[in-house]
């Protein structure tokens, strides 16, 4: 058991959690100091580690043996390579900013110390997830971040909707983890290890093996890849397990920024990228990943078009952007997917924190139809939110443009499936620009639509909130500059950095085609912004008109395609019904209990009849006993003689 400084990266937040959860009550309002210092320490160590990795060092070592059972051996250990190094930077930097932001946002909350302990616990779990050198530790982090998400979504646990949302997130994720867990078992059964390096060293032995499931021959690689992908679908809220993320917005806004935008939900993308040698071996699995991503991104973007809850729109936007990342992974562009994960973390966290700042000023109001003109009252929030929106819309020069463009260009080059997802991706880019600017226009432009009292209350947020916004804005602008493609004069540094782990797909397209892809995406993005401007700035009657004309489409989108209702009627209710009506009512209540209670009744009836035998004479009893003994012994002896 050797301790190295890398251990401290996850350990510091854990220590912060332990101190705060035990002793936080004693110093209530100062709890944030311990939490922030812990995460700051992790951040500094992460930067140092990143620099080491940049110089070509890859760290892989075991801390101690966690579980040993026969040939099953798993350690708590750390693998820090290029992929992990990027994740470390994303997680610790966003976490640090969210911690600082929360000082202002959660000020005066009765559970202040509890909130900061959970944030620390989350940071620990997420860091364990990304630094683990084996699948079981990943699974540990995977479930632990889910738990923190449960705690933090249900932070306002007195509220029914918050408590429900937390529970829903946990259980929906369990469905994904069901597949994931079986995938882990399969990996162990066929490779006899769960450590990444051993898995990837032996993974070629799986090639060509098939397994028979209900009469179908399925490639082992495909099966394992898809089972692992089940976990990713749950955690990253992809179809059909996306239902929990929008409800997760019940949590405090900093939580949405950290967990449900920048870090935890991207764990699925990290998983797929980490297992890229496995996924790349199966064309079917890759196609499933690409199409799931593409369809989800379109699906979520269409829902986002009509919603009015500012946080929910951004949540659907997150689902959509995560779909983008999977789309990238599915066409083999893992590097581009991680690049998008990197830039997305900053602009999406910024969007959420900006929304939080708006809510702070609006006393918790979430309906963008009741806002308007806020740019006058909160200029910093406005400008930073604007930067994030421009970035996500994919306007050249900002972070979102470079990563999105990289994905679209590589998708364009990746065969038939690639072309299909490229078309979808381009459409989504337009929709994204539209709904992002719909928020901007409805919230910050025009006249204020709330009550007079609310207007009086409007104010810019305190500096503990605006400073993180400004720092994130720098990220939302410049995070993409590490991946400027050669065509635009850059060197795609991040792509080359990640290449040892994630590889780089071959590109056949010409420069002209690349210019075309860029041009189309930019035109589409500008078109989206322009449409939003027309509909929400210059001709405000159009949305209502459209809503009336396409009533049915609008209703379907407004109700999120009725997926929640579908699950309620096909899974939740039948299970409960079976539990209460069949199992309690019939099997346990009637059949088993009937037999059990029936036997004594039978005995009692016999007892009534045989009562005459109870004569009270001792010798009669002795006779009976002797006879019984004789019968038993003779039976035994007959038995034994055989």
């Amino acid at each position: 058991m050797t301790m190295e400084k890398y251990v401290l990266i996850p350990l510091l937040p854990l220590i912060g959690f332990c101190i705060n959860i035990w002793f936080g009550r004693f110093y209530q309002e100062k709890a944030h100091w311990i939490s922030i210092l812990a995460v700051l320490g992790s951040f500094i160590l992460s930067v140092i580690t990143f620099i080491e990795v940049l110089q070509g060092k890859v760290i892989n070592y075991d801390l101690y043996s966690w579980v040993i059972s026969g040939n099953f051996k798993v350690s708590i250990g750390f693998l820090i390579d290029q992929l992990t190094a990027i994740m470390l930077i994303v997680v610790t930097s966003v976490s640090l900013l969210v911690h600082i932001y929360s000082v202002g946002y959660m000020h005066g909350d009765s559970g202040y110390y509890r909130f900061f302990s959970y944030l620390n616990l989350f940071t620990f779990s997420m860091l364990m997830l990304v630094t683990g050198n084996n699948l079981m530790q990943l699974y540990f982090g995977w479930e632990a971040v889910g738990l923190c998400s449960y705690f933090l979504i249900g932070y306002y646990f007195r509220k029914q909707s918050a408590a429900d949302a937390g529970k829903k997130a946990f259980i929906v994720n369990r469905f994904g983890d069901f597949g994931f867990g079986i995938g882990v078992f399969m990996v162990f059964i066929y490779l006899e290890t769960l450590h990444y390096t051993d898995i990837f060293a032996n993974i070629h032995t799986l090639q060509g093996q098939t397994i028979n499931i209900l009469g179908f021959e399925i490639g082992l690689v495909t099966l394992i890849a898809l089972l692992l992908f089940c976990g990713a679908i749950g955690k990253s809220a992809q179809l059909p397990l996306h239902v929990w993320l929008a409800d997760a917005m019940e949590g405090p806004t900093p939580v949405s920024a950290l967990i449900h935008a920048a870090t935890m939900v991207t764990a699925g993308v990290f998983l797929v990228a980490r297992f890229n040698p496995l996924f790349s071996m199966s064309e079917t699995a890759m196609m499933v990943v690409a199409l799931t991503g593409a369809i989800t991104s379109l699906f979520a973007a269409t829902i986002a078009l009509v919603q009015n809850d500012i946080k929910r729109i951004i949540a659907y936007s997150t689902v959509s952007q995560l779909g983008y990342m999977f789309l990238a992974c599915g066409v083999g562009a893992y590097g581009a997917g991680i690049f998008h994960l990197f830039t997305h973390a900053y602009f999406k966290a910024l969007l959420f924190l900006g929304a939080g700042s708006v809510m702070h000023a609006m006393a918790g109001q979430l309906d963008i139809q009741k806002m308007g003109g806020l740019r006058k009252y909160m200029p910093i929030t406005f400008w930073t939110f604007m930067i994030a929106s421009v970035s996500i819309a994919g306007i050249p020069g900002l972070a979102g443009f470079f990563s999105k463009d990289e994905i679209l260009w590589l998708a364009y080059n990746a065969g038939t499936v690639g072309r299909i997802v490229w078309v979808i991706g381009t459409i989504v880019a337009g929709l994204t620009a539209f709904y992002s600017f719909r928020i901007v226009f409805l919230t910050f432009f025009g006249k204020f639509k709330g009550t007079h009292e609310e207007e009086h209350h409007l104010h810019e947020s305190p500096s503990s909130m605006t400073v993180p916004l400004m720092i994130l804005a720098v990220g939302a602008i410049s995070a993409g500059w590490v991946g400027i493609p050669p065509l635009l004069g850059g060197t795609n540094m991040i792509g080359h950095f990640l290449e040892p782990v994630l590889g780089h797909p071959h590109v056949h397209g010409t420069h002209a085609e690349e210019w075309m892809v860029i041009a189309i995406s930019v035109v589409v993005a500008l078109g989206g912004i322009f449409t939003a401007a027309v509909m929400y700035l210059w001709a405000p009657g159009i949305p209502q008109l459209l809503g009336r004309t396409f009533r049915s489409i609008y209703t379907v989108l407004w109700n999120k395609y009725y997926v929640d209702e579908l699950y309620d009627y096909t899974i939740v209710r039948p299970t409960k019904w079976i539990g209460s009506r069949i199992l309690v009512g019939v099997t346990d209540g009637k059949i088993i209990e009937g037999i059990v209670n029936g036997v004594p009744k039978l005995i009692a009836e016999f007892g009534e009849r045989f009562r005459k035998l109870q004569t009270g004479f001792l010798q009669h009893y002795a006779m009976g006993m002797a006879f019984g003994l004789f019968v038993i012994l003779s039976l035994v002896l007959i038995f034994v003689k055989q």
Partner: protein
Amino acid sequence: MQTGHDSHADKQPVNTIARTLLYVPAIIAFVYLGAIFSVQIEYPVLSWVIFLPIIGGFLIFLIPRKHEMLARATSLGLTLVAFILSLPLYINFDKTTAKMQFTEVHNWIPAWGIKYSLGVDGISILFVLLSTLLSILCVTVSWTAITEKVKEFYGSILLIEGSMIGVFCSLDFFLFYIFWEAMLIPMYILIGVWGGPNRVYAAIKFFLFTLVGSLLMLVGIIVSYYYTNKSFDVLQMMNTTYPYTIQLILFWAFFAAFAVKVPMFPVHTWLPDAHTEAPTAGSVILAGILIKMGAYGFLRFSIPLFPEAAKAMAPIMIVLSVIAIIYGAVICLAQTDLKRLIAYSSVSHMGFVTLGIFALNMQGIQGGILQMINHGIVTGALFLSVGIIYERTHTREIAHYGGAATAMPVYAAFFMIFTLASIGLPGTNGFIGEFLILLGGFMAWKLMGVLACTGIIIGAGYMLWLYQKVFFLETNPYAHYHEDVNEREFLTLLPLVVLVLWIGFYPNALLSFMEVSVQGLIDRVNVSAQQQITQNIIEVIK
């Protein structure tokens, strides 16, 4: 008003935590010094750990009725001493051998080949330690809850403790059977006298179920006695190879006794009634240790004595286990009674245990044993917790609760940890056990492994639902929580939290105990299965 209430709720547990933290070093020092002391002196560990509580239990009956506190203090002292005396088992255990250790053999009734023979190996040792630990907590949790017939209550608990440990240590079938049955009587009394409103029904049901099972086992024991040259020696029986037909018959005879205790589907219906009606300490003993005796019986007797039959019957056992997992979990979703829900969850969790055991591979069996310990800790803890809140609210209806997290934050944190352990979250002990079981089960029977995994989804469903109904939302005006946990309750739950996390992060501490013994068991199954095949081949050739 609201703030005033909040500040009260916030201030009170601060004092509790502060005060209890002062006790913790004292307790650690006590256990540490006790361990040093008990390792120094030489004594027959197992006999002491068995008979100290039993004799002590009888002595407590002699205490005059008016000295209630004396009865409590004596039993606390006795359970503590028994725990200290059991520590050498942990410290001096040799993990490198599958042989029985700490053995004590004396002739008892030589004419019938009955011996007083005790010993532990890697499979049984942990249960002894769990029993001595949980007994202490049973005493402390009942401190103020039991106000009538106090000395009889504590006497019964001590009698149960001694006989339970006897069951786990006996290496002579006759002795085993005596302990096995002896434990029924105080348990029956415990449920029947201090139980809930429906206690008599529950007690009789419990008694009849287990008795019928035990009688079949008795017949089985007698038959195997004749096959082993009239000896009740378990180790000698293990070296005997029974004809296959006899193995099958005996396997089912023993199954009757063990399956009822586990309890396996479909003989589980005594459990919800008994657990629900029993007083808190009774539920803890039932869930924590008593039902482990069934699964232990499979490991100690059914599998090593009748390996071919066990191997042949494994598919049936696995199917029954998976039914129990899913059935127990789904039925939990429909419960309205706090204790009943946890009781049914035991059916599901014990389904995991038997699944692991009959996977008949290393991961499965180790996971199964570990999960038994885990279940003892976690479900024991859940019943302790329910007892603690029941003492305040006097209701078990889930609908009568709500908002307990506001009124009792420290208690809520404890309950949360046990809930998470119950649904097998990584970092808790439940995860390691379930993971190994499912891995083992999946390796042996793929489809069954997959089906068993669904139990985990439903498990999260009902436990989180329960937690939400009791702890979240607005405080229910009809629930009188009074105050958060006091020092005694805090210290009762704390050791279990430590165990949950310790096993969760360092399961090797326990897995290493059983490794060699389990390997021996698996070898026995595989070797005799091969012998059987060879025999079959020879018969065919003939």
